[in-house]
């Protein structure tokens, strides 16, 4: 958390803390047995418990706890042996009980950290805590005049609220943190990460101060649901706060919303009784006890984490950090890479092809690598043929196209069928080069006279004469030899 001078904005240091609400990927709600699937008709997934009908009581979902344990393990946190559920009391139409069951003094996950790269620099953001709580319902305003329609399907969906220390020092760092956290929660399978559906919601607490000064008053930007708007929103808020301070106004604590249309943050209607939530332990729920056995069991079932795997790829395959980070964006992509790299023995080439040809096609088709038409084994086979000189890079792309479109499935068969074999025979190549040199004596003269461009022209001629099949590297070498 060094205060890099280069990060100052108008002379002010930016201090950001993040709160992320991750919806946990369970079948049923945290305290009821209603389903959690997205997109159902209003109030068809809100049972009596979710609606807070008189006489209803909460019963805890085991899977929600297990997913919290997974996150704690992934972030190196302490998992509380005993944690307590507390009621957070306030009135709002999307909060059926008039209180939210959350955790206050003793959360299930305590401490931990998230590390990531911002450019070349490694950053670590410390976590304060992560706690379990229930989501609220939704208010719909569009179709009603002067009224709102309340849908309680979402009420009771399990959430993990993940809170950081105010360690973040720039909007770029905030986005990088959010992206890394997003990667982790989806990687370990606790959250589907669908930000459009509200599965991963971020709030940024932003304040500014002169370096060395005490923390400034923060304002909270709520519901940042896209990485793009996240950076914009924070940048605007920082500039706004600085302007206010420079104009002699004190910053008032407030909750703000970002308007993507105007690019501005705007304070929400302030509630007079600012936050007296009257937390107290929920008498309907005894303390949550998590034994060491359970934690060990969960640990044994955890996949290798993305950061660990990235470090391993750098170490074992000699890949650059950037490649390793990109390849570990999902378990499926990392597995694809490793299979292809091990099979072909050409880690860097495989990495280039995945980040290039494969990703390009996947993005265009909005597909997932798990369903890519070209398997890792097939990619390895193509790359093996590049490495052993059978085909040139360009020819390989044609082979790949054929495999992707389903034209063929066997690499060698496709090479044969399309006649893409590279000409590697020195004898044959020498013959062609001799002919080209003889036919282009003027270019030879120009090269010998000092015009380097003529060399490329000669190479071009040789390639043309070979109908593109000549091995370009060999042509280069042989031509140089002959030109002396």
């Amino acid at each position: 958390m060094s205060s890099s001078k280069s990060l100052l904005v108008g002379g002010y240091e930016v201090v950001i803390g993040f709160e992320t609400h991750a919806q946990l990927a369970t079948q049923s709600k945290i305290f009821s047995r209603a389903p959690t699937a997205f997109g159902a008709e209003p109030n068809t997934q809100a049972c009596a418990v979710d609606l807070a009908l008189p006489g209803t009581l909460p019963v805890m979902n085991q899977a929600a706890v297990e997913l919290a344990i997974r996150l704690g393990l992934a972030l190196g946190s302490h998992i509380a042996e005993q944690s307590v559920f507390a009621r957070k009391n306030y009135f709002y139409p999307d909060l059926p009980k008039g209180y939210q069951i959350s955790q206050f003094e003793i959360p299930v996950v305590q401490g931990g950290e998230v590390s990531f790269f911002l450019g070349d620099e490694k950053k670590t953001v410390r976590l304060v805590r992560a706690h379990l709580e229930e989501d609220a319902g939704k208010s719909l305003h569009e179709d009603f005049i002067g009224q709102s329609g309340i849908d309680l399907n979402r009420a009771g969906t399990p959430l993990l609220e993940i809170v950081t220390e105010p360690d973040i020092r720039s909007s770029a760092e905030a986005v990088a943190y959010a992206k890394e956290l997003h990667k982790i929660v989806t990687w370990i399978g606790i959250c589907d990460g669908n930000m459009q559906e509200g599965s991963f919601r971020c709030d940024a607490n932003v304040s500014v101060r002169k370096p060395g000064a005490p923390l400034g008053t923060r304002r909270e930007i709520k519901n940042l649901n896209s990485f793009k708007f996240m950076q914009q929103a924070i940048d605007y808020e920082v500039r706004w706060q600085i302007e206010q301070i420079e104009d002699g106004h004190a910053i008032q604590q407030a909750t703000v919303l970002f308007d993507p249309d105007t690019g501005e943050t705007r304070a929400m209607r302030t509630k007079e009784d600012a936050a007296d939530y009257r937390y107290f332990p929920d008498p309907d729920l005894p303390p949550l006890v998590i034994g060491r056995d359970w934690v060990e069991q969960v640990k044994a079932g955890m996949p290798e984490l993305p950061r660990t795997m990235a470090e391993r790829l750098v170490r074992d395959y000699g890949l650059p950090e950037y490649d390793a980070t990109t390849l570990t964006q999902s378990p499926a992509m990392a597995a694809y890479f490793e299979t292809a790299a091990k099979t072909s023995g050409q880690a860097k080439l495989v990495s280039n092809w995945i980040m290039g040809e494969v990703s390009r096609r996947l993005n265009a088709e909005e597909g997932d690598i798990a369903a890519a038409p070209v398997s890792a084994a097939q990619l390895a086979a193509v790359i093996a043929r590049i490495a052993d000189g059978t085909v040139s890079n360009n020819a390989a792309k044609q082979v790949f196209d054929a495999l992707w479109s389903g034209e063929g499935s066997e690499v060698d068969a496709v090479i044969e069928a399309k006649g893409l074999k590279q000409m590697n025979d020195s004898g044959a190549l020498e013959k062609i080069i001799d002919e080209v040199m003889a036919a282009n004596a003027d270019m030879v003269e120009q090269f010998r006279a000092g015009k380097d461009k003529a060399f490329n022209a000669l190479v071009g001629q040789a390639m043309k004469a070979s109908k593109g099949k000549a091995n370009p590297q060999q042509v280069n070498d042989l031509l140089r030899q002959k030109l002396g």
Partner: protein
Amino acid sequence: MSLTQSDIGRIANLARLELSGAQSETMLTQLNGFFDIVEQMNAVDTTGVEPLAHPTAVIDHVSLRLRPDVASEPNDREANQKSAPAVERGLFLVPKVIE
């Protein structure tokens, strides 16, 4: 500890209750009478005593039971909304929520 009218106003607001002037007066007197008795608690030394949130915890280990993650509640919207004051197209209607 004596409450004031302003306390009554603040608490009523927190609790979303509306008290008339006369009701507030009465409430103030009654609550102050009540809190006179509550002051007795101050004299009790509770150093080192854990609060008792769940009564049988005095003799038993009380811990939260966990249920398997099964979505077994069917859609019972009609029955559940039987007593709703205002419903349209399955949504509960309320005065517009301003953010």
